[in-house]
């Protein structure tokens, strides 16, 4: 922990991350000491096959692999890491769960452990250990990690989808600060259009961008796909209000948003033609490298609060799970705990430059969130996020509804004028009833 205090006094962006992290030998020594003291003793000759999502920030991946190497030196456990794209993680993990071989651990997305809770090892001891040591878990961590009273996965981090805006364009549109409610937000979007500095949010089949902001819009107006008992309740006056709200926004967007995928808003924003969108921190990271003027003139804000009166954000969580058929349960638990220890986790989230937001409260203190105030909103996304299940259960049904773009298509159908509100809702309702039967 001495290193942590030294780091907190350091200032600056990413450059200091490498300097502040434990250097080679110190890291090895710390890792060895940690392994000695740890309550989880890896089995002799244990081997771990771990699958994770393919990195978006190169430095994050480097930090991750450094951590894995330190674990290997300290414990002698052989860890093999494979990388898969977002779309391939879920099917591959499901097949492994089904066949009972191939992998020991998966670092996946959204509600992965809830797709096959019976195949996940109980990690309550790991969760309690980490929670006690690092100031407790956020409430959303329990939603993502727990099935009943058991922790079936450890939520490692979240990547947030928040408002990205150009400061000068917002001020020119007559706003001193970013609007905090949906009414003010609509006014801003209209004014931006008038000034020819338009906003744009994905209405195409963009798994990340479109799903996150459109679920926000639906929930902000009190609409829900399903209720607490997984009954489909999309056909409601609140949904109609959300549809009309999004249509009003869409009419003031930059043209072409119905065709956007996950990368569209990034490249247009960095190029300087888009002045407001929702995204992870990746636009800011890219702009710092490719278009400094845009990076200096942009900032981030929480999603505005709608008529329901409380935040209704959806962010992308990354939980890690261990299969209960692993031959090395202790080694897997040790690795999970090892990853989230401050000596590892702090340099790791610093390397991610805001792309990974923690679920353990104490990591709020990490300087990555305050060294650059533009990153600060992303510090809180793990506290603010809801789950893809909305009010309903978190599991394969919710995952299927997200993957099949039920909510996205409903909004796109209405906003582009292909269907009236009744028709758009009817299509979504029918699809949802099929998935939630």
């Amino acid at each position: 922990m001495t290193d942590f205090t030294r780091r907190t006094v350091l200032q600056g962006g990413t450059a200091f991350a490498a300097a502040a992290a434990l250097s080679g030998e110190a890291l090895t020594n710390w890792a060895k000491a940690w392994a000695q003291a740890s309550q989880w003793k890896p089995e002799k000759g244990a081997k771990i096959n771990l699958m994770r999502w393919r990195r978006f920030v190169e430095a994050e991946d480097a930090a991750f692999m450094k951590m894995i190497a330190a674990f290997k030196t300290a414990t002698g456990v052989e860890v093999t890491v494979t990388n898969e794209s977002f779309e391939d993680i879920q099917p591959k993990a499901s097949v492994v769960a089904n066949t009972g071989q191939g992998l020991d651990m998966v670092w996946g997305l959204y509600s992965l452990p809830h797709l096959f809770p019976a195949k996940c090892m109980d990690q309550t001891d790991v969760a309690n250990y980490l929670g006690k040591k690092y100031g407790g878990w956020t409430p959303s961590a329990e939603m993502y990690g727990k099935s009943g009273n058991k922790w079936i996965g450890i939520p490692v981090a979240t990547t947030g989808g928040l408002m990205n805006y150009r400061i000068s364009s917002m001020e020119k549109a007559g706003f001193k600060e970013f609007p905090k409610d949906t009414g003010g937000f609509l006014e801003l979007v209209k004014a931006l259009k008038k000034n020819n500095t338009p906003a744009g949010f994905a209405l195409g089949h963009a798994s990340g961008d479109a799903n996150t902001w459109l679920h926000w819009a639906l929930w902000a107006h009190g609409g829900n796909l399903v209720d607490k008992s997984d009954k489909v309740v999309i056909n409601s006056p609140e949904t109609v209000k959300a549809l009309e709200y999004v249509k009003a926004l869409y009419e003031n967007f930059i043209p072409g948003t119905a065709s956007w995928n996950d990368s569209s808003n990034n490249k247009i924003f960095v190029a300087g033609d888009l002045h407001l969108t929702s995204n992870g921190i990746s636009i800011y990271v890219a702009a710092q490298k490719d278009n400094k003027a845009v990076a200096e003139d942009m900032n981030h804000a929480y999603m505005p609060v709608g008529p329901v009166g409380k935040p209704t954000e959806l962010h992308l969580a990354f939980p890690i799970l261990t299969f209960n058929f692993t031959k090395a349960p202790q080694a897997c638990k040790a690795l999970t705990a090892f990853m989230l220890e401050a000596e590892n986790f702090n340099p790791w989230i610093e390397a991610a430059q805001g792309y990974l937001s923690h679920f353990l409260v104490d990591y709020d203190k990490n300087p990555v969130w305050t060294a650059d105030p533009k990153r600060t909103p992303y510090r809180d996304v793990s506290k603010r996020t809801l789950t893809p299940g909305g009010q309903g259960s978190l599991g394969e049904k919710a995952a299927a509804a997200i993957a099949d773009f039920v909510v996205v298509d409903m909004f796109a159908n209405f906003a582009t004028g292909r269907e009236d509100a009744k028709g758009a809702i009817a299509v979504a309702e029918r699809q949802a009833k099929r998935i939630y039967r």
Partner: protein
Amino acid sequence: MVDATISARPRIAEPSAWSRLRTNRHWLGYWFMVPALGFLVLFLAYPLGLGVWLSFTDTKIGRAGEFIGLENYEWLGGDSIFWISVFNTLLYTIVASIIKFAAGLYLALLLNKHLPFKAMIRAAILIPFIVPTVLSAIAFWWIYDSQFSIISWSLRKIGLISTNIDFLGDPNNARASTIFANIWRGVPFVAITLLAGLQTVSPSLYEAATIDGATPWQRFRYITYPLLTPIIAVVMTFSVLFTFTDFQLIWAMTRGGPVNATHLMATLSYQRAIMGGQLGEGAAIATAMIPFLLAAIMISWFGLQRRKWQQGGDND
């Protein structure tokens, strides 16, 4: 003597069924076919059969399903998105195939003439076919980009338009754009294959026709076209099959959007089965493609392969 012969008879013995079989060439022939049959069963018949079987179950990824009869199909029957995908697939296939055929035939006829640098031009024609589909799809994705489209940019600079063309964001534009990309990619295959067919037509036929005073159109209509029909049948069958089952172009450019206006049956099947995990339903969509594909093959088989027609006679 008589007795002896009779008793000797069984010793000469009629060849047993087994020894007859052993020397039977046909029987041996079947054995030589076994490896090929094995490959076909293992890699074609089994996956196809499994796919059809899955379509009658509610299998999800990672979880075995139960037999549910026709439920998946009944569900699809009332699913507007499925019917949009069927409409899109037919529109995509019919429009793209007709234009590919016309443009391919035209190119083939041109290339069959004596041109300078003939070999090089012929090689160049093949380029769209050689480029991996995903790469050309990504290139088209940029060409059609809502913000950075080279077409919009050029037209704006010339002053013909004032705002960018929304190629992939407007349903009808998106359909036209994806069909164009498919045509660009498919024409070389048609052109080169038809060119090969053209070169098998004996020049003496043209000479004879010219002496008889046939016009160029008549030479095409009564010599080239009839002799080319078998090749056309094969080329168009393949072309229709490739177009009908297209996946990469759509997936890389639109993922079926905007508002499902470019979802083909293949992309919808992938979205539901692999991304959404509903293997049974995805398999049902894929299986629903089979009747269309069979119909396409039948049409070209019985429609274009008629001998009489090939030889220039009328169908009776």
